[in-house]
């Protein structure tokens, strides 16, 4: 309990914010995540960010980064975690399940059908060539998302954050050190630096 805690008799757990975000319903959550998911060739993150931040404005760019960072560092498929956490933020467990079902359900059906078709027609060369071209563009989209997620750090001139970001990129992407080891070092280090910087900022 911090000493400067709020009054004990606060009746509602969620205090109304001056500018409350629009509240999606269960069906709206299902449809929104199904759309993001079905559009998401080569990863849904591109579309999740576009849908949540740019189209529906359910979250700001900063909020999206923070929620995604949380889901990235918990184990498991990130975007699946994000859908569940995001849906439950608005509608509790039911909302989480609605978003999760929208995200995973329809593509599961499509992928299973594709797997069946591929078993018959997978050796056709034109199909393989086309898929390879799609993959090249899909990687470009992923890189664009990375740039967009970096922008809040760049705008804040968060030099410490950008150096940490670059260090992780080099360790995993270029040197190819094992993920677990890099995280074991990087997480405590980043925490210590962040705490240190904030203390210095206050002093």
């Amino acid at each position, binding site marked *: 309990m*911090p000493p400067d*805690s*709020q009054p004990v008799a606060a009746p509602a757990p969620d205090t109304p914010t001056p500018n409350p975000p629009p509240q999606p319903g269960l069906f709206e959550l299902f449809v929104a995540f199904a759309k993001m*998911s*079905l559009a998401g*060739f080569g990863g*849904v993150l591109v579309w999740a960010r*576009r849908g949540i931040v740019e189209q529906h404005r359910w979250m700001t760019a900063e909020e999206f980064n923070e*929620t995604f960072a*949380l*889901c*990235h*560092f*918990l*184990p*498991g*498929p*990130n*975007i*699946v*975690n*994000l859908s*569940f956490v995001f849906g439950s933020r608005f509608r509790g467990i039911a909302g989480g399940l609605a978003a999760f079902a929208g*995200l995973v359900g329809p*593509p*599961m059906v*499509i*992928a*299973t059908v594709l797997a069946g078709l591929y078993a018959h027609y*997978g050796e056709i060369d*034109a199909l393989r*060539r*086309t*898929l*390879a*071209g*799609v*993959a*090249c*563009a*899909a*990687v*470009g*989209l*992923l*890189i*664009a*998302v*990375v*740039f*967009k997620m*970096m922008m809040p750090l760049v705008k804040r001139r968060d030099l410490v954050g950008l150096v*940490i970001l670059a260090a992780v990129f080099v360790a*995993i*992407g*270029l040197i190819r050190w094992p993920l677990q080891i890099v995280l074991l070092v990087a*997480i405590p280090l980043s*925490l210590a630096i*962040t*705490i240190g910087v904030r203390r210095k900022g206050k002093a």
Partner: protein
Amino acid sequence: MTANPNPIATLVWTFGLMSLFAVGGANSAIPEMHRVAVDVHHWMTDKQFADVFAISQLSPGPNVLIVTLIGYSVAGVAGALAATVAMCGPTALLAYYVSRFLERSRGARWPAIIQAALVPLSIGLMAASGLILARTSDQSWIAALITVVAAALASATRINPFWLLLAGGVLGFAGVV
């Protein structure tokens, strides 16, 4: 390892356990999936695994679909469902409880500090995935050019990403890549 008579139970156990160690997302667990599916359980050959990976990348939807397809090839539709739920369920619940815990302690200072510390790591990992994926799919300079142009257009404009994917597919079909 003894052979398990019930493939569904094996799928649930395998992917449920794997999900808890899959820090950094489904794509970072792919080497482990390969080890389990090809080397440990002999569910599929190397070539089949590569094909399954390609299909999962090129289907719409989250990367975790590769787990759906492995489950499908082991035990049909029931296997697909079981593997997917096992991979997604436990960690989604964990994420739910952790985020609720963070929301509740919003008055405290440490959740904001933890999140601020994690954001740059998260983006750095994503950037590394981008590089690793680019190395595997960009086998020619034209392929690399397509990636660079797609990245530039998606960053600088509000163009619908689907058109970029379509353009990549058309160029691939034409034999340019």
